[in-house]
């Protein structure tokens, strides 16, 4: 982990409220699921850094995919080519690789796509399910279709792309067709992660989930980002964001 200054090379809309940003900086190799903490420079607003998963890093270029939610991400959407941002990372623990004998299934919803896509682009094998409300909420669909060795499925609630329904429904259906040992990688809304964890437990699959929690530091010093696990509170930023789904206390 280190702090470095990055230049915005590109920042373009690629979907409903969703932007793909390319930053230029001397970063470090990363594991999919790891994230970075981003800060605008030259202003005290927003005061805190914002966590974003790393989509890719190669040849001094970091790719980030983010959705505009509140003040911080909308300021981010307004940054232009050539502006400098401060990057802290890579942070946290990423996804494990699928074992040779494991069939890999990737499930993403909402802002959960970047780490999942990063993993699929690394392993280049398995099946990827991306769920959204409607087709406009699925950015980078072309890119997902072009990962050699990875078979993508889209689910939309309104049926405007792929299967009508939710991602976990498609996941359940898929799991029934898989006989070999299986590992599920999921990132998205808590409801989706919980359901994925349940399906995994039912089918005996291994399941890793990447969890979102409000963060202040991102490197383990403030205790903002805890999640309840079977062994007590864990910090999402350093002990996660990727956890074995069976260790998470999902609550009711």
């Amino acid at each position: 982990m280190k702090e470095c200054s990055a230049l915005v090379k590109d920042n373009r809309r690629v979907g409903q409220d969703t932007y793909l940003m390319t930053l230029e900086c001397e970063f470090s190799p990363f594991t999919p699921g790891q994230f970075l903490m981003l800060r605008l420079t030259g202003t005290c607003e927003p005061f805190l850094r914002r966590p974003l998963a790393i989509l890719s890093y190669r040849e001094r270029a970091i790719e980030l995919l983010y959705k505009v939610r509140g003040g911080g991400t909308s300021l981010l959407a307004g940054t232009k080519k050539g502006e400098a941002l401060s990057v802290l990372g890579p942070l946290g623990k990423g996804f494990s690789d699928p074992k040779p004998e494991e069939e890999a299934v990737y499930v993403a919803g909402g802002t959960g796509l970047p780490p999942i896509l990063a993993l699929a682009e690394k392993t280049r094998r398995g099946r990827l399910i991306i769920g959204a409300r409607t087709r406009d909420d699925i950015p980078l669909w072309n890119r997902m279709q072009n990962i050699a060795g990875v078979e993508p499925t889209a689910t939309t609630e309104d049926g405007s792309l792929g299967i009508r329904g939710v991602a976990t429904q498609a996941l359940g259906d898929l799991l029934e067709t898989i006989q070999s040992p299986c590992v599920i990688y999921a990132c998205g809304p808590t409801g989706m992660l919980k359901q994925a964890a349940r399906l995994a437990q039912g089918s005996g699959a291994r399941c890793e989930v990447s969890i979102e929690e409000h963060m202040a530091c991102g490197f383990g010093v403030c205790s903002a980002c805890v999640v309840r696990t079977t062994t007590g509170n864990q910090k999402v930023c350093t002990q996660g964001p990727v956890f074995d789904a069976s260790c998470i206390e999902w609550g009711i």
Partner: protein
Amino acid sequence: MDISTRLAPGLCLKNPVLSASGTFAYGEEFSRMFDLSLLGGVVTKGLSLLPSEGNPTPRVCETPCGMLNAIGLENIGIDAFIEEKLPFLGTFDTEVIVNFFGTAEDEYAQMAQRLDIEGVSAIEMNVSCPNIKKGGIEFGKDPQILNRLVAKVRKSTTKPLVVKLSPMVTHIGEMALAAQEGGADALTCSNTFPAMAIDENTLRPMLGNVTGGLSGPAIKPIALRIVWEVSRQVSIPVIASGGITSWKDAVHFLLAGASAVEIGSASLRDPLCFGAIIEGLIRYMQDKGLESISDIIGRLQTA
């Protein structure tokens, strides 16, 4: 040039820049980013007798030029600290100030006693906690309760004793004097301000705990006034805390009367700010031709 600063008999920092409690954990994470020996001292996360799990999430939230936190004093407990964290901190050439709290006088006293060991340079009492016995009134809100508490802790330790005041009181000077008369060696002014934020879409508070503590640049002007007011009323050193992000902020607090400064929230957004603040301070002193940090402390010109 001499940038060392004295906080108590036997406690002299090599420079006036400290971490603040709760934004530095127990030092390990920051030690991977820079050599902790750079710092005048490290103030640890607030400890309690037993480990504590803290509040429900969300525990932090952004506010204009600041942040709210309601961590709820989650910590690993004093035993784990002494066993697992203190030896590590001892490997650096810096002072170790252990922040702690309790919910009863006895608990504070017991903590102070347990911390009266090698490797601990000083202890910092956080009095922004409810006194369960007195029906939940915070120790830091009543001068008599505070005075008694400090006096009791004073008797339980040979270490320099720092009392960290709550800012949200009518007469901060009375609280400061109560702590000084109870035997405090130094005062930290001050902790976060009780505050809250609301989400107009969910109609719910932004924090799991409803209210939290406001910190960051937003509170700096209030914290600065408190340091100015307190340092003119007490005879013991004052440590400043509240919104310090730059060397200029540090200079302002020193001019107002602080003998050292704690950097909290700013180090969450910029973990390397400590070095920049120390360097900026040195450059300032060079530019102004000042020989010693005491040429800054309390030198605000108001006439």
